[in-house]
């Protein structure tokens, strides 16, 4: 190791520390933004040190540098443009796209290291194994993330896409990918084998994510995030770069934790999610509310809801993805701040899987100027429900289905928001249609529940008008 390499190593160590400190500062909203900036500083010095080291040690051809500069410029413009213009409801798609490009960049780096080494000296196993793993994982992440983004965007059907023999096909493709991987590790002079790994991994990514249902989006996005981190770490092993190894490991850890937490929040195993099939066949058969259940439903008008809210002391709002889909975050925030101004205590009870990615609902509410302090996590919210006059459920269903407490149905064991513990419940929903789990929700037929069948946006506007009348009268 030359003195210069030693200095670059120290800079990598510093930038890795800045990544960790930056992530650490994301614990609280007050420090999170600076945390992200600190992480960006770590990024800048890591890249600058790498540029300096590459120029000194290998120099390189001017044409390669020119190609890199053009690529970075185009990619950078695309990335910043999308980041600035993306709607907050569409952030999960964008994160998926970033996973896709990150994973494939890692795969491209490994591929370049592979063809370079074959033309000069043969690859050592300590290099060929990470290269092959990187191409494998990076390619799965690339195609899988693009399909996930397509599903989230609605370009590709959100329900699980399966066909007769699809699992057998998956198994065959996976076996070919694995076989080619082993062969490519043993025979590192054969580029064709690595191409086979690349192609089969791409197909595998598509098949895997196509078979996963839309309700599982938070898990899938987290899982692909973890895989991208792993691919980047493998690229680090392949080119002996510690910055890539550390950053990849950090992201791998983040993605893995989120994957497990999301799976837990739905009480499903990660494996069963990957194998797909939620909300299909066996479960859908029991869908649809029975007639006698519909007879027990108490319908409300917006005026009824307005009175209830205006004279309540403690209100908990349970937002579901239906709220975001109706783009009604601003309306609900307006109603809440009106009530707060008239001394009603209003908080939001947010389930971990309320949005399309972990923490998504919080971002959508923050966009509508809802203060961080008003957003309660699952446990805090469930304590608050016991002392709550009105639980206002908007566009949410499975996350507050009391059936989760009894065994033997699709949501059994899933941690839920105890909206049924509130003194009264108001549900704003378009219809009695069941949620993703495909089972009826007894909360809707509970005697203390009133249903307001309407579009969330219009209903909230009308309720706000109503509340204004009651509080000024």
């Amino acid at each position, binding site marked *: 190791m030359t003195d210069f390499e030693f200095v670059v190593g120290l800079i990598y160590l510093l930038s890795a520390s800045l990544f960790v400190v930056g992530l650490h500062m994301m614990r609280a909203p007050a420090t999170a933004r600076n945390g992200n900036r600190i992480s960006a500083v770590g990024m800048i010095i890591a890249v600058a040190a790498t540029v300096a080291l590459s120029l000194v040690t290998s120099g390189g051809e001017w044409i390669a540098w020119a190609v890199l500069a053009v690529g970075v410029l185009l990619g950078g413009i695309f990335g910043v443009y999308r980041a600035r213009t993306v709607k907050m409801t569409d952030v999960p798609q964008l994160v998926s796209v970033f996973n896709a490009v990150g994973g494939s960049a890692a795969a491209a780096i490994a591929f370049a290291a592979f063809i370079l080494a074959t033309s000069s000296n043969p690859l050592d196993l300590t290099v060929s194994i990470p290269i092959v793993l990187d191409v494998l994982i990076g390619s799965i992440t690339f195609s899988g993330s693009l399909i996930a983004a397509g599903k989230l965007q609605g370009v590709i059907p959100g329900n699980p896409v399966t066909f007769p023999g699809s699992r057998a096909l998956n198994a065959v493709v996976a076996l070919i990918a694995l076989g080619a991987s082993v062969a490519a590790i043993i025979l590192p002079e054969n580029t064709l084998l690595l191409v086979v790994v690349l192609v089969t991994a791409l197909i595998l990514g598509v098949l895997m994510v196509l078979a996963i249902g839309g309700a599982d989006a938070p898990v899938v996005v987290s899982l692909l995030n973890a895989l991208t981190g792993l691919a980047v770490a493998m690229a680090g092993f392949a080119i002996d770069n510690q910055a890539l190894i550390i950053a990849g490991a950090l992201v791998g850890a*983040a993605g893995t934790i989120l994957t497990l937490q999301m799976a837990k929040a739905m009480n499903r195993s990660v494996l069963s999610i990957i194998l797909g099939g939620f909300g299909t066949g066996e479960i859908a058969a029991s869908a649809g509310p029975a007639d006698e259940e519909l007879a027990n439903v108490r319908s409300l008008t917006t005026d009824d809801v307005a009175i209830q809210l205006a004279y309540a002391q403690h209100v908990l709002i349970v937002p579901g993805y239906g709220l975001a889909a109706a783009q009604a975050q601003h309306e609900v925030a307006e109603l809440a701040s009106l009530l707060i101004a008239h001394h009603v205590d209003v908080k939001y009870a947010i389930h971990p899987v309320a949005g399309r990615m972990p923490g998504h609902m919080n971002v959508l509410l923050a966009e509508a100027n809802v203060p961080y302090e008003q957003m309660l996590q699952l446990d805090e919210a469930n304590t608050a429900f016991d002392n709550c006059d009105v639980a206002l459920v908007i566009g949410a269903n499975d996350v507050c289905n009391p059936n989760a407490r009894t065994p033997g149905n699709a949501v059994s064991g899933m941690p839920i928001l105890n909206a049924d513990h509130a003194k009264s419940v108001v549900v704003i929903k378009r219809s009695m249609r069941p949620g993703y789990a495909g089972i009826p929700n007894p909360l809707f037929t509970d005697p203390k529940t009133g249903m307001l069948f309407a579009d969330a946006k219009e209903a909230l506007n009308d309720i706000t008008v109503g509340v204004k009348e009651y509080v000024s009268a």
Partner: protein
Amino acid sequence: MQILFGNLAIFVLALLVGVEVISKIPSTLHTPMMSGANAIHGVVIAGAVVTASLANSPTGYILTFIAGAFAAANVFGGYAVTDRILKMFMRPKAVEPADETKTSKDAS
């Protein structure tokens, strides 16, 4: 072998640090944390730089271009969107409720 061992040790320890730091982040901030972590894996752009310095064939140039463009989209976009999200969590909250209270007093 020695290089591999050093790198493996770094990898495993970084994984453990990651688990430790990230488990402490509240679920409310999971989206910005994830997109922030997403930006961090944009460090793959450093790998693209190394690839560029070694590329000596048309295939090498193509791979350099792919790695550079994709990594740049990842890193610039990732930091930009995370900053945008976190800015929303930091909005001054005193302004609007204060106005509301005023109007409510007028009304009552």
